[in-house]
């Protein structure tokens, strides 16, 4: 009787041999050297996007993909886009980005923080390719950064929440305590406090990017604890629908979620990446691309608060509009002192407007927020 163990590697070796045979028949050359910039008129510009989640998540990656589609709509034949979804943020990312660069893509967008190191390494090897990293901080001659100001619509949502709450308790369902999320929680709370100083915000972390049933659990627990208006930075409609089920209010996030819960939906905080992507492509085509860090918000059309519900009273709608106009004019700054954190320490002095560096370093929760972040 053939030793079952030998069978296994006999079997597997046959498969590998077959594959290698096939490979030998179709052997390509060694990894191609970075191509010289092709004349943009003859060939379409190849652009690639790397997503951390599935395009069908109806959330973060979905919104970026809408941006990619906007590029296709705008440039038609002059651009050829590629996307790779569900790329894990660990060691695999480098391979994917490197392959995209080697395949002739001239500009590559990596849409999540965890791709930073990988992109940085690949950028060093492909000086002719442009690399764009969302939400990061490392740059190079051919690598730059872009980001959005979600805290602006979060602030406006807070204003609405502050007026709509009857229990003076707001709830926030968070994925991970990364700086952007902390900024959003703070903006939400500050916005609410500006119209209703008595509110407090309860925060719950689900510690995963993606688990809609857990988002429902978290939302339910906040509601059980007395919250009647919820915000989230998780990607699905679970929180909104749980609020609906319980007769409470909530907001949409990343995309317009008004269709999901007529009664519960107050407004949606969205990001429109298309505008930035179109600009980036144009920069490459016009040869005006240079390393910088672009952070766009309501003013540039990158962020917005949409579909404000009818149930919101007119005076609140008016206030939100005023704030929005202020943001569009560049005169309204969400993080204006005095800001005190929930341990009592002052983080921003009275009447000071926070600069980009302050916002990047946000590692606290403002007064009025009940919740924890791991201490250093």
């Amino acid at each position, binding site marked *: 009787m053939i030793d079952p163990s030998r069978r296994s590697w006999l079997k597997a070796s046959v498969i590998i041999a077959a594959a290698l045979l096939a490979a030998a028949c179709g052997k390509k050359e060694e990894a191609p050297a970075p191509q010289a910039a092709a004349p943009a008129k003859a060939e379409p510009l190849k652009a690639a996007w790397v997503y951390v989640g599935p395009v*069908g998540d109806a959330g973060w990656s979905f919104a970026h993909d809408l941006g990619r589609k906007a590029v296709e709509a705008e440039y038609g034949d002059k651009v050829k886009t590629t996307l790779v979804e569900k790329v894990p943020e660990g060691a695999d990312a480098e391979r994917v980005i490197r392959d995209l660069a080697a395949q002739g893509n001239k500009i590559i967008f990596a849409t999540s923080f965890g791709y930073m190191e990988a992109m940085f390494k690949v950028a060093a090897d492909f000086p002719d390719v442009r690399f764009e990293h969302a939400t990061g901080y490392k740059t190079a001659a051919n690598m730059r950064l872009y980001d959005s100001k979600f805290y602006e619509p979060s602030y406006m949502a807070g204003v609405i929440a502050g007026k709509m709450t009857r229990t003076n308790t707001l709830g926030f369902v968070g994925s991970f305590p990364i700086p952007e999320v902390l900024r959003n929680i703070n903006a939400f709370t500050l916005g609410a406090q500006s119209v209703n100083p008595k509110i407090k915000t309860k925060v719950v972390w689900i510690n995963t990017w993606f688990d809609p049933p857990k988002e429902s659990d978290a939302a339910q627990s906040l509601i059980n604890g007395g919250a009647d208006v919820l915000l989230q930075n998780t990607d699905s409609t679970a929180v909104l629908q749980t609020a609906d089920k319980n007769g409470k209010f909530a907001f949409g996030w990343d995309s317009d979620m008004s269709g999901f819960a007529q009664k519960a939906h107050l407004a949606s905080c969205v990001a429109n990446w298309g505008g930035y992507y179109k600009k980036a492509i144009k920069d490459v085509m016009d040869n005006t691309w240079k390393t910088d860090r672009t952070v766009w918000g309501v003013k540039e059309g990158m962020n917005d608060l949409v579909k404000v519900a009818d149930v919101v009273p007119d005076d609140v709608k008016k206030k939100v509009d005023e704030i929005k106009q202020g943001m569009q004019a560049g005169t309204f700054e969400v993080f204006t002192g005095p800001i005190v954190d929930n341990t009592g320490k002052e983080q921003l002095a009275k009447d000071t407007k926070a600069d980009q560096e302050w916002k990047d370093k946000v590692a606290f929760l403002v007064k009025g927020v009940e919740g924890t972040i791991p201490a250093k």
Partner: protein
Amino acid sequence: MNEVALLIAATIASGTPLALAGLGLLLNEKAGVVNLGAEGMMLVAAIAGFAAAYHGGSQWIGFSAGALAGVAMAAVFGWLVIWLNTNQYATGLALSLFGTGLSAFVGIGYVGKKLAERSTFEVPGLVHLPFLGDAVFRQHPLAYFAMALALGIAWFLYRSPAGLILRSVGEAPESAHALGIEVRGIRLAAVLAGGALCGLAGAFLSLVYAPLWVEGLVSGRGWIALALTTFATWRPARVLAGAYLFGGVTMLQFQLQSEGVQIASQLLTMLPYLATVAVLALISRNPAWIRINMPGALGKPFHPGA
């Protein structure tokens, strides 16, 4: 509303899909078949149920579709494992892989879609009882079904002749075969029933719990349900208890977080898993108990006349 009552209600809701899947897997395992494909079955059933409810308009159509999808997946598994005698663990893993990919693939068009307005459920009359009304009587019908099912399966296994046959097939299939029992047919029936229940559990997630479809919706609950059958030392009532324990501690740690307890949220997130391990350690101390309940031929292939 009383906070404790709300916590109990949330626990029951959270534990129901785990209980349904766990009971289905229990039936499988009592007949001697380990099905590691629970996650894949639940995912395929979740998208099948969602799609059916979306097109058909009613969640009961969705539940039927989900159960049927579970049966279909289980049938493939059952044929491979019972008739072709493939390794049960490997085949189950393949089923999970396949189901994950298939559900994502088929579900591409359903992301971002919304089901028709659903109603809230409550047991008329009983819901007005103080405390108990809020705690127990505002659940979806499937929650009560899960509880009744646990009792029903316990009765079936330990008090009915058919249940005895099922258990004998799982304990000592050769002896059962010698007595004229159609071992493979019964194993298949158990696998299909298990598939139907896992299907219901998956559909519950996409139709009631979230309710929505995105790929990966089940997020590992199939594996938790599998773990629960060993936690429950193969007794149906214990599956229910384990499901509620897990669901309850999950809700409890959220509550602790929202109350601002000064413990890092990651450590609190560990609690449901640690609690399950701790309780298992406590209740497993009597080895005889486990031996009595664990099916003797679990995981081993059976071939008549081999």
